[in-house]
């Protein structure tokens, strides 16, 4: 069976901001996500994790290499994928409900049925009765729930998530992670989850991919997470197996994190 998403020798080179020269964000990346698999990609900050996700989404064309979705080469926007962004992505002039219906509206679905579906989804993410609020009237966690509903209502086969919960406080974050796992386990979509938080990666995923520090980021290790499901993200962190996995992956990552940190420091001080 073809993997849901496969990146083959993907390289992304950008023109440097200063004008001269190039900057290679990711180089020769091979990554395959099977149908129904939850894969986390971790790496030091600024290593090009988001670039990979944008490539998989079709928002960014790789300089070289191929992207295949269920075996077919990707051309243009990846219509089978839903994308959850790190930054605020809701349309501020639309109410929560109208934000959730947006995707259906773009696909030409009738207003009444779109509305009914959206209300169902708002309820599933715990926001029943908040439909007429505008994004600025919601807390950060509530806005993320709206984003989640906005993405899931279109029933995408692939979920691309770019540090979706990184702006939330720890408690809200663990709540959201548990809810995500619950929603995911209902129909097992393929997930690429980008994060810089190793604990988050391990507690959510079937597999963790570790990236090297940039530039020319590439995967330097893959770890199968054999923790039992269903999981509770805050409880599973206390199990011996979790700690063992965390130790192993952290050991591999540490060098890269330090490298990445040194680079950022040089960049800002130079």
């Amino acid at each position, binding site marked *: 069976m073809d993997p849901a998403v496969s990146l083959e020798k993907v390289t992304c080179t950008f023109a440097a901001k200063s004008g001269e020269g190039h900057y290679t964000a990711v180089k020769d990346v091979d990554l395959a996500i099977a149908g129904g698999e939850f894969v986390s990609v971790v790496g030091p900050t600024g290593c090009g994790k988001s670039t990979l996700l944008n490539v998989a989404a079709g928002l960014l064309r790789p300089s070289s290499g191929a992207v295949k979705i269920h075996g077919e080469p990707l051309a243009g*926007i990846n219509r089978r994928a839903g*994308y959850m962004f790190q930054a605020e*992505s809701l349309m*501020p*002039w639309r109410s929560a409900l109208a934000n959730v219906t947006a995707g259906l509206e*773009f*696909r030409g679905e009738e207003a009444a049925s779109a509305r009914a579906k959206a209300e169902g989804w708002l309820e599933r993410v715990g926001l029943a009765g908040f439909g007429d609020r505008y994004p600025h*009237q919601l807390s950060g966690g509530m806005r993320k729930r709206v984003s989640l509903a906005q*993405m899931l209502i279109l029933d995408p086969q692939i979920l691309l998530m770019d540090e979706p919960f990184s702006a939330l406080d720890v408690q*809200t974050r663990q709540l959201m992670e548990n809810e995500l796992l619950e929603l995911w386990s209902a129909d097992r979509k393929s997930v690429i989850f980008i994060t810089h938080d190793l604990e988050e990666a391990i507690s959510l995923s079937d597999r963790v991919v570790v990236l090297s520090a940039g530039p020319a980021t590439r995967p330097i290790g893959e770890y199968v997470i054999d923790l039992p499901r269903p999981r509770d993200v805050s409880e599973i962190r206390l199990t011996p197996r979790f700690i063992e996995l965390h130790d192993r992956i952290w050991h591999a990552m540490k060098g890269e994190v330090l490298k990445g940190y040194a680079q950022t420091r040089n960049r800002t001080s130079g």
Partner: protein
Amino acid sequence: MKRRLWFWQALLLAAIFGLWHVATAPDLLPPIVWDNPDRAAFFFGEPLKMFVVIRDWFVSGEIYPHLWVTLQETALAFVIGSLLGLAIGLWLGLTPFASMLLDPYIKAANAMPRVVLAPIFMVWFGLGIWSKVALGVTLVFFIVFFNVYQGVKEVSPVVLSNATMLGASRRQLLRHVYLPSATSWVFSSLHTSVGMAFVGAVVGEYLGSARGVGYLIHMAEGAFDINTVFAGILVLTVFALVLDFAVSAAEKRLLVWRPVQGETEPQL
């Protein structure tokens, strides 16, 4: 607190009119600047006589057609100028080549004092309302245009990418992302652009017309009737204040989705 403020504000207004009256009424005070006691009233008018003029205008109903004409000119200039500014701002904001090509011309057109166009508009559109509307449009257009242009440039790339991932076509992006975002910028310039439409209407009337409050002021000035000039100015000021209130009310209704400073956010 608010009531007390109102009280002091009203008192200040009364004091200004009182001072004006005392300083201009003939023979009330001994002459200081001029020997002729009627001279101050000639230059500065007399508030009591001015109020009589205003009362007569409203009692006889003579003022209404003039106010109506000025209101029409203001409204038309605002609507046409805003629509043009919105359309061209969106177009140039989304077409980098056209915006680079036209950039110096837009800067030049904006720098030009556009009131000098008034005589040309009179030749083109006659002495009726359309020459005033045209003048107002040239004033309103640039305010709205620059706001929309900026608004399009500053649409959040994340919101755009998100809408794209949700399946929006290029046309849907325009309709559901660029347009609402640009419209919010139009509304943020609403007070200035309505004010400019009003300026265009009154200046146009003043320079040549047969109707409107600006015309009334112009005629009174020709007859050295300073009280009527001040009456016209006062009516225009009150009219502008009413317009401003209307704009604030419209803004409040239309921009509910905008965050208000200090508004609390419910936590979950």
